[in-house]
């Protein structure tokens, strides 16, 4: 699966798609493939502040639990309602399935994030 060029990526395998000061965050195809069947996604309530590099939730597959790390700082506006009953959407369409929408505190602070070709290179090492 190609990594869309319309967004940035973290080394922890999250993606973030910016639209002005609002951003959607999800996990990459590589991440969902490593996790296996996703059965539960635990996300923060709207209004909570998240900090770049810090855990904002967790994702559980049948075999393990993994933390979700915020690519950028901001305030959670919305949580994807689909995930409560259909966590498997993360496996089926990882790049379309956003988990949270965040109002970024600094939309310019993308310095440490990877572009799609850098991220793809990372998954091949």
């Amino acid at each position, binding site marked *: 699966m190609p990594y869309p060029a319309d967004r940035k990526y973290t080394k922890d395998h999250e993606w973030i798609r910016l639209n002005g000061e609002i951003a959607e965050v999800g996990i990459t195809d590589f991440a969902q493939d490593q996790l*296996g069947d996703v059965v539960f996604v635990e996300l923060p309530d709207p209004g909570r502040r998240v900090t770049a590099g810090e855990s904002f939730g967790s994702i559980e597959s049948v075999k393990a*639990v993994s933390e979700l790390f915020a690519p950028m700082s901001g305030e959670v506006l919305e949580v994807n309602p689909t995930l409560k009953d259909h966590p498997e959407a993360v496996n089926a369409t990882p790049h379309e399935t956003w988990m949270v929408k965040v109002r970024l505190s600094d939309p310019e602070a993308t310095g440490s994030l990877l572009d799609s070709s850098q991220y793809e290179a990372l998954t091949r090492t």
Partner: protein
Amino acid sequence: MTDTAASLRTTPLHARHRASGARMVPYAGWEMPVEYSGIVNEHLAVRSRAGLFDVSHMGEIEVAGKGALEAVQRVSSNDAAALKVGQAQYAGLLTPEGTFIDDMLVYRMGPSHFMLVVNAANTVKDFAWISEQVKLTGDAACVDSSSRYALLAIQGPAARDVLQPLTGVELSDIRYYWFSYGEVAAARVTISRTGYTGEDGYEIFVPPNMADRVWQALLESGRHADVIPCGLGARDTLRLEAAMRLYGNDIDESTTVLEAGLGWTIGWKKSDFIGRERLLEQKERGLARTLVGFEMLERGIARQGYAVLHQGNRVGQVTSGTQTPFLKKAIGMAYVPTAFSTPGSQIEIDVRGRVTKAQVVPLPFYKRVMGSGVI
């Protein structure tokens, strides 16, 4: 590949797994397939049709000679004298404290010949222990014959229909926990009606050089029934639904047979075995803690090592836990004080800092509906 990966052992089916796109992981010193098409898919295939597993990492230790029965009786918790030739039983390999060095299946191959099938991670330790005990009883020999066998498991309601066309052995004559010899796809094998999934099925001991041939033949025979290869991930979720204990999770050298709820594997009537005295004491005194099954009542999945709480106090620990694909519930097993061990008892699990309600339920979580076959 790192040095660690290079030093992992591989089964005779390793190339087949890799070529088939399995995800390989290190497990108990072996590089093993954890999943092929996904744990959920594989789990459901075994419950509804059948799945094929490579469990060649399991160890085989054989004890033979005039004193073999005496030696096995000494190291095994169960009563091996009750076994007929061609029959198998589940048992503990115990410390003098009545705790688990390992758990195992004891096969009676002949009147004075036994095969103990043990966990991969423990084979070396088990062999050292058993050898020592065999020496004490005398007139028997003990051999680690693990490298002589590949072990395939075909598990699920369709297992017999998939295996039968490949063998002249009449499978309906093999009762549950019995075994027979014969050919499968022209390989000389031992066919055992056993498994670790909670389904009916067979475990087939195959010469390593014939493993790929038998593997391919089983998949081909099962194609019409959509039988698929499965990895250790599904094996773990399947065994947990069936409440089969996993060494290293639910039982180990710190847990006794009685605490683990496996009192039925103790041959109290036989004269003696290692661990008997302590188990008898514990039986008379009563258990302080016991292994129970639980279901989560709130959203959250308990995992191995999470604390069990009661009214905010830590009272025990989760040994296994997952979201089960078939029952579609978050379940687990845990050691709790005996006072909280009756089904219906309310407990809490500390799910990474969040106190989450759970309830003790009877084991097993899943029990197959027995067919009309000879079981």
